[in-house]
């Protein structure tokens, strides 16, 4: 076990330690929560970037916590998919933490915000890094409970109602996941994911496995807000403060929902044609229903929340295709969506910070007074609509080509239709909010403060340059490693067990 592998548990320990340090000292020292939040997320970002390098040189890394070798001990597994999602989560978390330095000045008790934020980050990193089923549940719950508290952070009427709805549906999803884990433990008598995969491959699939698959689909579907389990998202994401909306929409539904779903179904239970078609159907349903419900919205953040549902549909469609090209498209769209959706929510936060409203009909012509915000919103809108050469175009193209290649022309048609409607929807946003005649009420609004501008510009830069990730030099260690892990499916079990000495 080389010293470089110590980064695997540190990805979880650093944000966790930061959260409790802030809880201990943050009340008294004034700027300490901001500084600690910045340093903890920066450290997590550097650790996740170096994990890509570790995977490139050493292949799969299995870290046995406490020296106990799996399957007896808890194992933390670092493979291509883990490194990919880690980088996604930590990049967004770092930039959102910078954004919050200015945005959260309006709220009291900023130290509570940063403590909960770092706890949520530790939970998400834990979900991605773990190689043990029950450990997955524990970290899932840490991140989920922290996010319920963060949605209710402002304690206004709407925030509390949305937080309660979110908490009830999230807890129901977690209970279904726990029931599935209990049944899986009963069927295989082990909790280690690789060992479970090996045991399940040796048994013949029976109706118990069907029940377990259904429980996991519904449970993780509730976490990922796939239609028909999406009802909490349009209330929770708009009501949260803008940096939290960015985190929830950008990374939480992906690492808790889509990543866990993919890991469990591809590597542990094994992908079957039935599960694949269910995932594709849910994906297509989410794509279409999300975008139809989004077009009629006049509340900016609610519109963005419905578009989140639609874009998660793209990711589910890509992953559900279960062909290497489809998985590549799905995972690349996961990364791209994190970037442009967080950027869009941060932009809505900047607009709200300056004007105090989220209603599109009250805004108008803000581009003159807030050039940076409107330029970054334009970049993000072109990404989400899939206009070349922004990053959204490449991932949507790969998904559509994969659907056509697999012979699913119906799904490809729905994907193209949803993309056109997304374009229409964001043209509406740009027209009403930024272009056009400046509304007299906003005659003296100022541009967003420095840290908010920095975060938005950094994300916009990633949007513009994101297509470069498909170049061979960057593609191999990052996207291709992740795709290979899922495409190999149940070979994960043999790979992990062979790493254990």
């Amino acid at each position, binding site marked *: 076990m080389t010293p470089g592998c110590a980064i695997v548990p540190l990805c979880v320990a650093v944000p966790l330690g930061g959260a409790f340090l802030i809880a201990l000292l943050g009340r008294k020292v004034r700027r300490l929560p901001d500084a600690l939040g910045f340093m903890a997320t920066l450290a997590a970002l550097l650790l996740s970037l170096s994990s890509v390098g570790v995977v490139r040189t050493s292949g799969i890394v299995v870290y046995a916590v406490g020296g106990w070798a799996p399957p007896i001990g808890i194992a933390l597994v670092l493979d291509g998919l883990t490194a990919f999602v880690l980088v996604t989560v930590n990049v967004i978390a770092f930039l959102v933490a910078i954004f919050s330095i200015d945005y959260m000045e309006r709220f009291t008790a900023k130290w509570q915000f940063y403590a909960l934020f770092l706890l949520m980050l530790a939970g998400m990193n834990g979900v991605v890094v773990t190689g043990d089923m029950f450990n997955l549940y524990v970290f899932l719950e840490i991140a989920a409970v922290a996010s319920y508290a963060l949605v209710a952070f402002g304690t206004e009427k*709407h925030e509390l109602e949305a937080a309660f709805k979110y908490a009830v549906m999230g807890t129901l999803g977690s209970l279904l996941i726990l*029931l599935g884990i209990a049944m899986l433990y009963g069927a295989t008598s082990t909790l280690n994911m690789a060992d479970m995969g090996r045991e399940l491959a040796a048994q013949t699939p029976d109706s118990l496995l069907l029940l377990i698959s259904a429980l996991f689909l519904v449970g993780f579907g509730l976490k990922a807000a796939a239609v028909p389990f999406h009802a909490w998202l349009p209330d929770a994401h708009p009501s949260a403060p803008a940096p939290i909306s960015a985190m929830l929409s950008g990374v939480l539904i992906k690492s808790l929902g889509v990543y866990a779903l993919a890991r469990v179904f591809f590597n542990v239970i094994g992908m079957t044609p039935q599960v694949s078609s269910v995932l594709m159907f849910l994906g297509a349903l989410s794509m279409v229903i999300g975008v139809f419900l989004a077009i009629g919205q006049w509340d900016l953040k609610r519109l963005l929340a419905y578009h989140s549902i639609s874009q998660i549909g793209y990711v589910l469609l890509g992953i559900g295709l279960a062909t290497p090209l489809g998985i590549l498209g799905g995972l690349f769209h996961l990364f791209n969506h994190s970037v442009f959706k967080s950027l869009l929510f941060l932009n809505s936060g900047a607009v709200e910070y300056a004007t105090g409203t989220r209603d599109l009909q009250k805004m108008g012509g803000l581009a003159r007074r807030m050039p940076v915000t409107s330029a970054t919103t334009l970049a993000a809108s072109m990404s989400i609509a899939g206009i070349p050469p922004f990053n959204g175009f490449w991932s949507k193209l790969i998904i559509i080509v994969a659907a056509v290649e697999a012979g699913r022309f119906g799904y490809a048609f729905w994907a193209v239709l949803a993309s056109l409607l997304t374009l229409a929807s964001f043209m509406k946003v740009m027209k009403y909010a930024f272009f056009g005649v400046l509304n007299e009420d906003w005659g003296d609004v100022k541009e967003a403060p420095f840290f908010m501008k920095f975060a938005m510009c950094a994300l916009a830069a990633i949007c513009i340059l994101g297509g470069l990730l498909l170049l061979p030099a960057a593609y191999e260690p990052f996207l291709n490693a992740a795709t290979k892990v899922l495409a190999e499916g149940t070979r994960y079990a043999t790979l992990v067990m062979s790493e254990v000495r």
Partner: protein
Amino acid sequence: MAVYVLCLVLFCLGVYCILAKRNIIKIIVGITIAECAVNMFFVLTAYKTGGRAPILEPGAGIPVASMVDPLPHALVLTAIVIGLATTALMVAIAMRIYAKYGTYDIAEIRELKG
């Protein structure tokens, strides 16, 4: 086999309570019932007929092969604590909802629409 089915029936009762009741506090009670059902299910997977408690003693003690499985016991302990944290947070949110809306009835707490 019958005990597992009973646990699942209890879980379904908890889910019915979450879906059908109108008072926020009753919804929280429903979540607690469903959580208890899942924890019981988990503990039951550990049981073995004629098993003894998995505690080592000095000297000869109980043969390890006849002990019940201790792993689900540890997991259920963790799950109970997680359930406690979630319930505490939901009760705190419910109390503040009462302060803002003046009622616990979810039919009247419907400001977010569309």
